[in-house]
């Protein structure tokens, strides 16, 4: 029995070793899921965790979703209807040549590190976009010529040309106000003027935000907000049902909604977003370099059926890449009605019958859902699309976006007012020939508000006529919450998830 004793000793040593390895701090930086008192705290379930807190250097909607409006604020903010509202600037005036904005700032604003917010910070933040941001968003500030401090509470911004888009952009992440002493480690520390501060971030799980006492505006309705990140939609609704979260924001599985519709303990909000599900075609490569083939794709698809099948009918049919919350929105749903006969005729005219194409589908739930029905509808008019999946974002960005090595793809374009980014650039992966819209777009941006809207409407009409992409539908912003949660923002107009007015009945 000598060796059996040794076996026991060895087993005990092994057990002890494993216990000491897995000491009590396990996962402490990842933190806990404990919930505080329900009525002073709110837990929101989201999908897609930010990779860090620095949207000046990292792309993706997850970072501004958490931080804009809650931690960082701009001179203006965009309300739920897409209108520009005062925020850190009480008011502003525009010079007669429409090139100089003078902002009057609030006096009582302090950053969360205690520093006062002044005109110097505006100058610092706006100039920093050009000097230090490493992000594609920074070109939105290219139009700024100079930022002049007039007094502590007054700042003048001189633009190189009149721009209507710029004031709106100030309400998006590029307009966020930073304190010069608070930008050392933006990836891990966020210091802003907003009503919340980041109390803790449990990577892989949750961001906890605490309400500030020294906030200048209306205090938030709750003391703490926890943003919890889930890998899949089913887990979010399970967490809602089991009481682990109070709100599921931007729910990604509409097929799960009917069970909540029946239940009085929950409410469902169906808002709009900026997410346009675009079936993109490579305008520079065969067969889609022929406008007739692209138009055939427009007529071949019954977008209502696509929406019903792929996203349970939640969402809005658009017909053009402009959501209703944009000022230059027009209903373009009648531009290309479902007409398979016409599609076949167009393909015949183009000599493109029995077309074989490759359809590059990113690995995302919406893309997967959309691709099946799109393929079957295209087949009916004689376009045989072979689905090829591309890991998103890595492979899709490399192959489709950078190398333009694709014929057809589908993507959710989430950026607000990105019409010109996508279509006014022939080198963009869609490869739309912008010669017809370039000058109209430039004139519209420099015109007054009415001229801007009229010009942009013309741009949208021209793009629609050329059919560079088929905008299948506008992604809904689906929110499921406990019935007694109030003040939820239903619409997602900018990237921000503004929780300052959210609370309990």
């Amino acid at each position, binding site marked *: 029995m000598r060796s059996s004793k040794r076996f026991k000793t060895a087993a005990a040593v092994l057990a002890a070793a494993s216990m000491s390895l897995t000491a009590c701090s396990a996962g*402490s930086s990842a933190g806990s899921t404990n919930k505080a008192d329900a009525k002073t705290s709110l837990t929101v379930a989201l999908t897609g965790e930010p990779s860090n807190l620095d949207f000046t250097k990292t*792309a993706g909607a997850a970072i501004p979703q958490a931080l804009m409006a809650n931690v960082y604020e701009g001179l203006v903010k965009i309300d739920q209807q897409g209108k520009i509202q005062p925020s850190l600037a009480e008011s502003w005036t525009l010079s007669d040549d429409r090139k100089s904005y003078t902002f009057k700032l609030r006096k009582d604003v302090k950053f969360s590190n205690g520093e006062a917010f002044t005109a110097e910070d505006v100058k610092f933040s706006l100039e920093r976009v050009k000097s230090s941001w490493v992000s594609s968003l920074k070109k939105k500030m290219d139009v700024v010529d100079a930022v002049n401090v007039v007094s502590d509470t007054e700042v003048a911004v001189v633009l190189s040309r009149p721009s209507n888009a710029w004031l709106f952009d100030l309400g998006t992440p590029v307009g966020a106000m930073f304190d010069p002493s608070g930008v050392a480690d933006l990836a891990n520390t966020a210091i802003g003027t907003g009503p919340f501060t980041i109390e803790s971030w449990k990577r892989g799980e949750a961001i906890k935000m605490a309400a500030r006492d020294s906030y200048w505006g209306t205090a938030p309705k709750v003391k703490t907000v926890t943003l919890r990140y889930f890998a899949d939609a089913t887990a979010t609704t399970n967490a809602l049902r089991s009481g682990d979260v109070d709100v599921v924001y931007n729910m990604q599985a509409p097929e799960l909604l009917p069970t909540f519709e029946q239940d009085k303990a929950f409410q469902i909000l169906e808002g709009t977003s900026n997410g346009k599900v675009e079936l993109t075609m490579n305008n520079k490569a065969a067969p889609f370099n022929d406008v007739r083939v692209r138009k055939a794709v427009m007529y071949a698809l019954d977008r209502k059926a696509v929406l019903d099948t792929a996203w349970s009918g939640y969402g809005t049919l658009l017909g053009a890449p402009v959501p209703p919350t944009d000022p230059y929105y027009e209903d373009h749903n009648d531009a290309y009605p479902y007409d398979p006969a016409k599609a076949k005729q167009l393909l015949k005219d183009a000599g493109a019958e029995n077309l074989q194409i490759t359809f590059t589908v990113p690995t995302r739930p919406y893309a997967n859902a959309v691709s099946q029905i799109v393929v079957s509808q295209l087949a009916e008019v004689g376009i045989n699309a072979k689905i090829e999946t591309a890991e998103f974002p890595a492979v899709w960005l490399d192959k489709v976006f950078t190398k333009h090595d694709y014929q057809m793809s589908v993507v959710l374009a989430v950026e607000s007012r990105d019409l010109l980014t996508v279509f006014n650039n022939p080198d963009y992966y869609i490869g739309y020939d912008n010669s017809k819209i370039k000058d109209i777009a430039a004139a519209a941006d420099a015109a007054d508000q009415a001229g801007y809207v009229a010009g942009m409407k013309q741009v949208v009409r021209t793009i629609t006529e050329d059919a560079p992409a088929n905008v299948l539908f506008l992604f809904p912003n689906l929110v499921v919450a406990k019935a007694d949660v109030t003040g939820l923002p239903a619409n997602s107009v900018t990237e921000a998830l503004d929780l300052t007015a959210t609370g309990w009945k």
Partner: protein
Amino acid sequence: MVVRLLVNLSRFIVTFFAATVAVFLLMRAIPGDPAQIALGVNASPELLEETRRQLGTDRPLPVQYVDWVTGLPQGNFGVSFVTRQDISPMIADRVQVSLILVMLSMVVALLIAIPFGTLAAVRHRQPSGVLISAMSQLGVAIPGFLAGILLVVVFAVGLGWLPSNGWTPPGEDFGDFLRRLVLPVAALASVQGAILTRYVRSAVLEVMSEDYLRTARAKGLGPLEALVRHGLRNASIPVLTVTSVQLAALIVGAVVVERVFVIPGLGSMLLDAVGNRDMLTVQSVVMVLVAITLIINLVVDLLYTVLDPRIRKKA
């Protein structure tokens, strides 16, 4: 004994460094540019250049490799491309979560497998033995994530007894730590338990037909006594082998269960890092996994010699 240990150690080191080369090259071979992912759509070529310079991915591959690999022995893995934090503390944290989850699940799985597997072998001609066999077959067929989802639907959503997901560090609130651990451990242990039950059963069956067991019976021991005193120890060798393989596989394989239960473990970290092409983090996590696997093998190798003196004498 000492020679055996030395041979094992040198094998450990060689395998480890071969693995560093393999994982480094693999991460470079797959498509996807970390700078492009960090910047997303609409990034200009100048910005991409600038970001590659900041990440250090514009340097020649041998330089990047040496830079990374020389940090490894000191536990310095570098700074993540994505989170812009030191990788070492992040991994240390996640490894503990995974080890708690996986070790606990394996212990529970063995507590299920050893008695049931033995019983199934002893009664392999009786209905109860066949029933256990059938149940374990069913358990093997159920993927861990499905077991997890079913458990959540029943115990968290339906009955409301336990939280549906999440993680609490044991030092913060031990009760909550245990409550949140019950379902994921049950999900992992039920599947692993079923797998191990089958191995225990076949190992015990094999031992039961050995001559020495018949001899033990002839000396006057009862069937169960003979099996427990002389048989189980011999049956334990193949079971130990399978357990160690499963244990190593589960440390990253638990990722599906981690996703279902939103547990911040090593597998989730690896999956996110691959998605972001966060090269340094992927490489470092894989090396930690390689090290853990090699350590498990070393320990198991030592345990063999404890369990079976013949192995010791051979070496």
